[in-house]
Each structure stands twice: as structure tokens, then as C-alpha cells.
């Protein structure tokens, strides 16, 4: 199969959830856009959604930010992983403590892609 005929790659999604400190929505998003996103996208991690929940500025309501990034399948995952062990990345996550109470990162895919991903790990079963 030539490169032009290559099968489409199911994307892997990176789900970043941040529980923000009070009043830190704008500073966090500005820092993420300027300090983290450019290098992350250079590693093949493309930002596709930025969500805030709950979507209100009511005083006393704690906010969370959900970032959804896209990786180009398993090759994209390992391309990202081969480039993220840097001092800059480590400093970014360390500095995030100024804006966030806690965070999680998870990886996800569409339900329809799951069997395909499983089969990739069983080609030489």
C-alpha cells in the first residue's frame, strides 16, 4: 500500500482537566496559549477544544477548564512522547501550580476506534 493509499489513522484525544484557583481563568488561559500550546502543537498535539465549566462568572463558583487535544493515532502519541521530556515542559507544569488547584490528564478515543486500537496490540498474537 502506498503512502497515498494509507488507511486513515484514528485519532487519540488528550483530555486535560484543570480545577482553577479563584480568579485564575484568564491568566491560566493566556499562559497556556503563549507558553504551552505552541510547543505542544509542534509535538503534534493539536488543540481542538477549550471549555470552561460551569460557564459562569458568578462570584464564589469554582471553575474548571477542559482542554481537548488531538494526536494522530499511535504514531502521533509516541511522536509526542519522544519530545516531551524537556526542561521547558517540566517548568510549565510546575508553574501551573500558580493557577490551578489540581489537574488530570487522560487519553481517549471514539468508541468506534477501540477495536482497531486493540487489534494493533495483537498483530503478532
Amino acid at each position, binding site marked *: 500500500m502506498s503512502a497515498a493509499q494509507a488507511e486513515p489513522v484514528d485519532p487519540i484525544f488528550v483530555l486535560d482537566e484543570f480545577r482553577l484557583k479563584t480568579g485564575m481563568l484568564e491568566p491560566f488561559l493566556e499562559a497556556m496559549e503563549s507558553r504551552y500550546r505552541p510547543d505542544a502543537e509542534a509535538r503534534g498535539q493539536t488543540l481542538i477544544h477549550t471549555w470552561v465549566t460551569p460557564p459562569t462568572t458568578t462570584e464564589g463558583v469554582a471553575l474548571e477548564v477542559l482542554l481537548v487535544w488531538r494526536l494522530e493515532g499511535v504514531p502521533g502519541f509516541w511522536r509526542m512522547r519522544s519530545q516531551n521530556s524537556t526542561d521547558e515542559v517540566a517548568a510549565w507544569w510546575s508553574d501551573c501550580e500558580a493557577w490551578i488547584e489540581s489537574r488530570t490528564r487522560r487519553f481517549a478515543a471514539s468508541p468506534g476506534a477501540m477495536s482497531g486500537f486493540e487489534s494493533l496490540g495483537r498483530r503478532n*498474537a
Partner: protein
Amino acid sequence: MTIRIVGQVSLVEATSAGEKQEFVRALCESGMSIEGAISSHAGVHTESSVGGGDLTWDLRFSEEDAVEDFCERVKHAGEGGIFGALGAELALLAPRVSSVELAIPEAIRGHVGVPGLVGIKRTLWLRVLPGTDPAASERFEAETPMLAAAVPAIRNWQWSRIRVAAPNPMTTRWTHLWEQEFETLAGLESDYMASPCHWGVVDRWFDPEMPDRIVDLWLAHLACPATESVLGWQAAG
């Protein structure tokens, strides 16, 4: 009951590929001259191996006393002189060695599905960071064997802590060994790397961007040809 010692051996600079293969053959034979050793296996690392020496060496002993004697000799030799301290036959190989790291794996879990396997042995040397929450370390230790269930190309495997109590051959920076045997390199480089259990579950303990990470970024990912199943030694008694 047998005891296995796992090593990574670095050879002096400018050792050619052919010389490495010759060294491995000599080490398989000479290892048997160590008092109490009943098996010796070595393999040159594949080009995709990173973070460790030039070859993996597995030694098997049948008696704890022999292991104790081995450890005593190694301890007093210092890292650069280990081969010189292990008898005349290994001393002949010493000038070609630049460093040796040795560890005794103490199995947390393991399985030998194909005891007669000839293929690829992969050893991941890793260090859980000092100060890690014991509960997190327990979860990591419980999850790692899930990879063996998710990747059938892993025919044999052993997940171990490195022995820190005496006798052990040396103080080492590593805390755990994750060893697998595959029939082909594709099982490791294709199936193992592509499994969603790998990148979607277990890798979070290793990923510097994950808040869950507890494993030091310096890993030794070492694969070599296996002319026999060293993980099957235990099953063979």
C-alpha cells in the same frame, strides 16, 4: 528454586558489532565457570535499545550460598573490575568491559507460557522516584502486568523489584525490572508499543506530563536476541 542475576554490560569504546557478538559467545561459555552458576546467557542489544549498556547478561545459580559468594566477590571488585574478580576465564574478558550493572530480580508476578522460546528478550530497568507515595507505587506494581494480558505477543514475562537486602551484587539506581520474551522483535516494537493498554493506561506512570508519574525519566530499555528462555529457567527448576 533457582536464583537469577541480571546484568547490563558496557564494552569499551570502538568495539565493533562483530566483536560484540564474539564477546557474547565467550560470556555465555565463561559465565559457566563462575562457581555455582548453572546457566549463562547473553545477547547484544538491538539498535532500538536505549539508556543502558551493550548487552544483557543473565546468570542462574541453584544455591543461595553461591549467590552470596558471587555478590561478595563483585562487591569488593568495584564496578570496573567485576570480570577480573570472577575467576580466570572471565578475567580474560575484563579488558573489553567498561562497566557492569548487576541486579537480582525478586518477582512480584510472572508467567512463562513458552518455556522453550527462542526469540527476543526485553528488559526495562526503571527507578521509582524516591519519596513516591507507597499507595501509588502499589498501584503501579499492580497495573504493569496488565500489559502482558493486553499484548499476547508477550509469551513470557516477569515483573520484579530489585533485591536491596543482602546478598545483592551492588547498590544500583534501579528499583524494578520489567522483563518480557517475544518470538519476534515485531512483537515488541509493533504490538507492545501500539497496545492501548500501554499508551492509554500504563504509560502514565512514565509520562513527564502526567500528574501520576512516579518513574524516573532515565530508563534502560534493552532488547536482545534470546537463544533460550531465561525467564523459563525458573520453570525448568
